[in-house]
């Protein structure tokens, strides 16, 4: 393993840490505020393509170390896509099978990618009727497999497993601190399982209690893949409100328009969740006047072309004759 020459004996040696961080790239044209630079942490540079590599790797290794994955026992996990892609890719490369329980609203591209990464898919409708306080259908179905077929499946459970937080406490947090030379004043991130915000928040607060941790979430009724509105957060046990200074609720349409601006003005091929985070960061930069912001950009644009067309119809090619699924 050599991070200088980037020659590796296997893909897992590429997993990020302080010595091999994901890049931090400044946003220039979209943020002319010289007193409040904004840096994007490009999590899509992880080997399996998203921020979820970090949690997936910690979850998987923990199961392996505890001997939970043997005698043909594989993984079952509810996933809106990226955790499943990371987990499936890693699991299959290490000889384990994986069943992904996927909500039907997950973009078509991600479902195909899950299969390409080697997951078996069980697709469920989570939207029969909004039911406050109840667990998602996909989470419950995954729990059912793990409970009824324990000889075949173990559920890492990204929504409850502290290893998800530990991944960010041990890698993302220290990377940001080192990359910014301790200058970071604001961290901008989204909320899903909340492993990212809790893990980075714990680390950065320890280093500098004044750092502002700002969570950006889409307005209710959104369809930004991978993100949760606060009203949907009850499924996660990893959310620690004491680590979050502010929760910004941003009109979810910004996710799509800002993602497009990042692609077209910054050369950053960022996906919708990154677009939403940029909008939140720009609002805070305008308000707080000076600072040093780090934005977690979870994923790039390539898995979200059908979502983009839905929200920005002019992206549809002129000769598109069929509805894109």
């Amino acid at each position: 393993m050599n991070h200088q020459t980037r020659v590796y004996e296997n893909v897992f040696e590429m997993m990020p840490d302080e010595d091999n961080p994901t890049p931090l790239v400044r946003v220039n044209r979209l943020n002319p505020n010289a007193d409040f630079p904004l840096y994007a942490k490009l999590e899509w540079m992880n080997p399996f393509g998203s921020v979820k590599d970090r949690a997936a790797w910690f979850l998987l290794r923990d199961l392996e170390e505890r001997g939970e994955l043997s005698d043909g026992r594989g993984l079952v996990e509810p996933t809106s896509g990226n955790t499943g892609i990371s987990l499936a890719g890693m699991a299959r490369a290490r000889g384990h099978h994986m069943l992904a329980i996927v909500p039907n609203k997950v973009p078509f591209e991600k479902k195909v990618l899950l299969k390409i990464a080697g997951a078996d898919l069980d697709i469920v409708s989570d939207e029969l009727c909004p039911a406050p306080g109840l667990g998602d259908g996909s989470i419950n179905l995954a729990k059912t497999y793990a409970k009824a077929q324990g000889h075949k499946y173990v559920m890492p459970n990204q929504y409850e497993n502290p290893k998800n937080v530990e991944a960010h406490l041990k890698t993302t947090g220290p990377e940001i601190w080192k990359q910014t030379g301790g200058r970071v004043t604001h961290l901008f991130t989204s909320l899903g399982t909340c492993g990212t915000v809790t893990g980075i928040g714990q680390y950065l607060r320890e280093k500098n209690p004044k750092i502002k941790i700002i969570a950006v979430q889409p307005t209710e009724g959104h369809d930004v893949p991978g993100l949760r509105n606060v009203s949907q957060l009850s499924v996660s046990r990893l959310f620690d409100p004491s680590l979050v200074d502010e929760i910004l609720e941003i009109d979810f349409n910004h996710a799509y328009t800002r993602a497009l601006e990042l692609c077209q003005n910054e050369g950053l091929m960022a996906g919708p969740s990154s677009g939403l985070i940029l909008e939140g960061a720009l609002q805070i930069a305008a308000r707080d006047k000076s600072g040093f912001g780090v934005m977690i950009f979870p994923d790039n644009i390539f898995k979200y072309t059908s979502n983009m067309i839905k929200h920005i119809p002019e992206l549809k090619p002129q000769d598109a004759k069929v509805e894109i699924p």
Partner: protein
Amino acid sequence: MTQYAHPEILVDTDWVKQNLGKPGIKLVEVDVDTKAYDAGHIRGSVGFNWQSQLQDQVRRDIISKQEFEKLMSDAGVSPSDTVILYGDNNNWFASYAFWLFKMYGHKDVRLMNGGRVKWLNESDKELTTEPTKITPTQYRASDPDLSLRALLPEVLKVQAEKRHNLVDVRSPDEYSGKVIAPPGMTETAQRGGHIPGAKSIPWSTAANADGTFKSADELRKIYLEDKGVDAKKDTIAYCRIGERSSHTWVVLKYLLGLSNVKNYDGSWTEYGSIVGAPIEK
């Protein structure tokens, strides 16, 4: 604290665990489809598919008396059995089955309070994929008890007379007509809105976070005091396709004990498509 009017129609998960495998007790899981049942079910239960087994597969209707008898016979249920129903989605489909069992005169049918999710999340409760051994029976049902079911002509009459409680249990956006159906649902209507005079009381107002029914006092306050359901009047509950309204039908008829409560299973997909039917938005 007051009791439910008919507390005997509910059993809790611990009761089910203690009574697993006892003769005369039959467990039935009712889901929108049998995916969850196939992945893991309570030992000894049979699984019913709401879409394919509880509805006529040609015309839009509940299954006939003969089909109900065959379903029961094939599931090994006898008329004298205590049937415990549980299911996904907060017991919606189990509640629909409960209504169907009552329609066809099954004497002792009960719901497992909290449904499959409550059982799933309790660490001392097991699930299995082991197939249930069934000894078929020769089940004989009663003719359907139509006093439990509202059909369109009655609903149209009731809406014109304005002497009934009409309870719309759909989400506020469906009631207001902002959406015709929840996103992604295939069963829909031609128009959005609600039946004139209907009160909006979403089904979930009757449920606790763990999926169990709220207490009698809480339910009385919500339905009778806050929302103004008049216990002296006859009542019809409806939703989009009749499954969420079954849940509320159980609440109104058995937990609050209102005397004449009907489930309108045609619900909004029927009413919202009738030419000339009055609609409020």
